[in-house]
């Protein structure tokens, strides 16, 4: 009961309906008793909360009324499109069976007609038949291409995965070991895609952010190991002025770019890398830089902003360091030692041939988070 009287007093105090004497007395009371003071503060906060809720409810109501009014006045247009759509859907529901029957009758007639036609038509010469089969070949190939697209749609990305970054990677061992840049693998996992659009799941075997290199292993039953890798990895960094080229995925498609070696060190005299003159785009990261003999002399990694065509590649000898280190240290089961390709099969053949031979070894790397 006393509580109620107190609350009553507090409420009257807060809404200012106390008489001056009473108010002075109450303020004195607040000063002397911290509990009462606390109660006043608490109650005032509580009432504010109630008032705010009241305001909000009132405002919500106003919003609804306003909305309705504007709809009636035609200022707001809601759902004429939805209406027509539902009409089509309902028509479809209504005539679904009729349509199905009509379609199957048409199909049956077509088959019978063609059977009769082929039975009664004269035999055609062999040449035409051959041409026909060629056509069928073409159709088959088209279907294969479509199949590929379907494969692409059914991505191997885990559900809810969000793509973080993409780059390029290339095989250094036919068993499925790839090298790429550490900065390409920013997410929690990665998949790789070959130049035909086929996706494979991959895991990170080793990553060294200092030299910005990483080794990926394709561990996907769909992956069929290649017989051999056509290029080898050079131990030296190449000569100034040497003509070089790269393959990479600045788009979803493999892209060829060429240039020349312009300096033996990288950005700011970095001795781990070299400078090359070539226009590179995001997505080229991790691509192999090859000389005309078909030796990988570097891994494309960065470019200088605001300067056109100045690109940097990590020297290929770093691949040896990384692989040797891994081969020496990793004794875990399931890891078979990486054997780097020793011989280039790309010498003395045209650039087109070189590219054709090696494009199966260059992959699009997609890093994701889930």
């Amino acid at each position, binding site marked *: 009961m006393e509580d109620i009287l107190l609350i009553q007093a507090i409420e009257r105090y807060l809404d200012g309906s106390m008489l001056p004497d009473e108010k002075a007395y109450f303020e004195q009371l607040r000063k002397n008793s911290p509990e009462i003071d606390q109660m006043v503060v*608490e109650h005032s906060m*509580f009432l504010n909360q109630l008032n705010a809720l*009241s305001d*909000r409810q009132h405002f919500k109501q106003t*919003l609804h009324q306003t*909305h309705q009014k*504007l709809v009636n006045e035609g200022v707001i247009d809601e759902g004429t499109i939805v209406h027509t759509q539902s009409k089509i859907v309902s028509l479809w529901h209504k005539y679904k069976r009729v349509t199905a029957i009509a379609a199957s009758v048409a199909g049956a007639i077509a088959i019978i007609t063609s059977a009769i036609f082929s039975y009664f038509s004269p035999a055609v010469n062999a040449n035409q038949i051959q041409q026909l089969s060629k056509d069928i070949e073409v159709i088959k190939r088209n279907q294969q291409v479509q199949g590929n697209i379907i494969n692409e749609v059914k991505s191997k990305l885990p559900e809810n995965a969000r793509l973080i970054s993409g780059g390029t990677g290339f095989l250094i061992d036919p068993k499925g070991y790839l090298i790429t840049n550490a900065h390409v693998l920013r997410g929690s996992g990665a998949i790789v895609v070959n130049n035909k659009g086929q996706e494979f799941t991959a895991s990170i075997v080793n990553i060294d952010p200092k030299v910005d290199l990483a080794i990926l292993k394709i561990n996907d039953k769909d992956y069929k190991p290649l017989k051999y890798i056509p290029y080898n990895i050079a131990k030296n960094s190449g000569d100034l002025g040497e003509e070089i080229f790269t393959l990479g995925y600045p788009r979803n498609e493999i892209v060829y770019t060429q240039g020349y070696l312009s300096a033996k060190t990288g950005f700011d005299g970095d001795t781990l890398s070299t400078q090359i003159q070539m226009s590179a785009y995001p997505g080229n990261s991790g691509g192999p830089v090859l000389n005309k003999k078909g030796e990988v002399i570097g891994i494309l990694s960065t470019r200088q902003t605001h300067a056109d065509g100045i690109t940097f590649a990590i020297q290929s000898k770093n691949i040896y360091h990384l692989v040797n280190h891994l081969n020496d240290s990793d004794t875990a089961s399931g890891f078979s030692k990486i054997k780097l390709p020793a011989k280039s099969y790309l010498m003395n053949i045209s650039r087109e041939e070189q590219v054709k031979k090696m494009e199966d070894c260059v992959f699009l790397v997609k890093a994701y988070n889930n």
Partner: protein
Amino acid sequence: MTIFWVTFTPKSVLKVQPVKAELNEQALLKGLAENDTKAIETIYKNNFNMVQSFIINNNGTYDDARDIFQEAMIALYEKAKSESFVLTSKINTYVYSICRRLWLKRLQQMGRFVLQTDSLEETVQVEDDLEMHEKRNAEFTIMERALNSLGEPCKSLLEGFYLKKLDMQELAKAFGYTNADNAKNQKYKCLTRLKKLFFTQYNIGE
């Protein structure tokens, strides 16, 4: 009444004198904070269609558009009412930014990821405001939950008095109390209970 003469200024004049346009916006916001129906309607009219087309174009329905827009209006309303209120952008930029954030968030909750295509529309930072708004929403939820667990007639009595701001005399009559004093007593008892419910929940930490 300044609202009106500025509102009726011809558009061409507004373009030449941006100061007046700003004045107009200020007046609208002032009207909004004071629950002025004309001001609310004007802001609604000027912004709704833009938001609706954004949401429809991004996998939303007409109902979603209305929900999100009204949520943004509430955020703007409560911001306009606060003492520390300053308008740092134009109303339509602000409303659009809030709606955009709210909608992207809801899409993410539904597990649909949308690419954040950079639209040509200009947006402003609204993260802090939205955080405030969400905190307020949480507090209101606690209050509403506390009210609902009170039971009758306490709930209706308190709602009638504190939320619908009805007169005590009327309330007493409607509930069948013999006189207003009895009803008042009952109201205080209910209020004490509500307060206890509210603060236990509130202090547990939303």
